[in-house]
């Protein structure tokens, strides 16, 4: 054995090359000419379609499972509004006849009655404007 070590590449190239049998090429070419099975051809053509279909089916099934397994919860109302109405006692709606019979009837009387004022606070009532009829009545009285 020589003292300087050979390179690994040199040593590997020195390894024997296995012989190839005489009919090698013929066997390869014969295998290429052998008819491809029908299932193989079908699989080759339908493979992309089947893979795509199975993928989308899997995604659909997962989504369906998630949707069906979720608990059915009714849509919760606005929590702020719930607190407000729970704290205040229900106020009866005034009847239309009572509003119309009031002496100080004006254009906004009905709207003011049906709007929901805070039950705790009573907004001070503005002094009603004098009517032209009153003024004319008073004028006749003075006269």
């Amino acid at each position: 054995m020589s003292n300087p070590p050979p390179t690994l590449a040199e040593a590997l190239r020195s390894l024997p090359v296995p012989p190839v049998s005489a009919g090698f090429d013929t066997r390869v070419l014969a295998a290429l000419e052998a008819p491809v099975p029908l299932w193989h051809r079908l699989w080759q053509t339908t493979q992309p379609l089947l893979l795509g279909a199975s993928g989308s089916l899997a995604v659909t099934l997962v989504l369906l499972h998630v949707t069906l397994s979720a608990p059915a919860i009714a849509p919760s109302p606005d929590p702020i509004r719930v607190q407000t109405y729970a704290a205040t006692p229900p106020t009866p709606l005034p009847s239309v006849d009572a509003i119309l019979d009031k002496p100080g009837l004006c254009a906004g009387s009905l709207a003011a009655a049906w709007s929901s004022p805070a039950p705790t606070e009573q907004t001070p009532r503005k002094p009603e404007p004098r009517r032209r009829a009153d003024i004319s009545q008073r004028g006749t009285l003075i006269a």
Partner: protein
Amino acid sequence: MINAMAGHWELGTECPSRDEREESLWIARARTDDEAAYRWLLGQYRARVVRLAAHVLRSNGDAEDVAQDTFVRAFQQLAKFRGQGRFSAWLFSITVRLCLDRRRSARTRCEVPADTAPEAVSADIPPETRLLVDALLDQLTPPMRAALILREIEGFDYDEIAAALKIPVGTVRSRLHTARAQFRDLWTAAQSEENSHV
């Protein structure tokens, strides 16, 4: 982009040599089921594919079977070869994959192929060295052997080996480093043993 014959190469990349252009021409003809083209490619790569398979499998009989399967598969799937790399790299990647598959199936059947029959022998290297390399190859795993053969005999770069073996480039480097270190250790041990006998 220049689309020349079967080989597609882009502007700015290295211009193919005359041999590569000729090979591209033959590959283009093989795509049209030309038997002469098949025979030309077989003549070019038959011995190299068999040698690679024999070293990876450590079995000459299995190597020929794998080489045959390699060519059949390569010719059937020639449309998948886009010409982005060397044809040999693509062909050898099929060889290595088939070798590893065969090893896996042989292991599950508890078969141990060990019928390495030496044939043509290089005269420059002493037989002791060949025995050492044989011992080294026996110690390595099949993927390591494949990396070693592709690098040291076929002259592939790390990227091509990584693509052929489907492993990271860093793994290729470490495998080759380990293989070289093991060869050095074997060599040193053989030398010291010989010196002790003297």
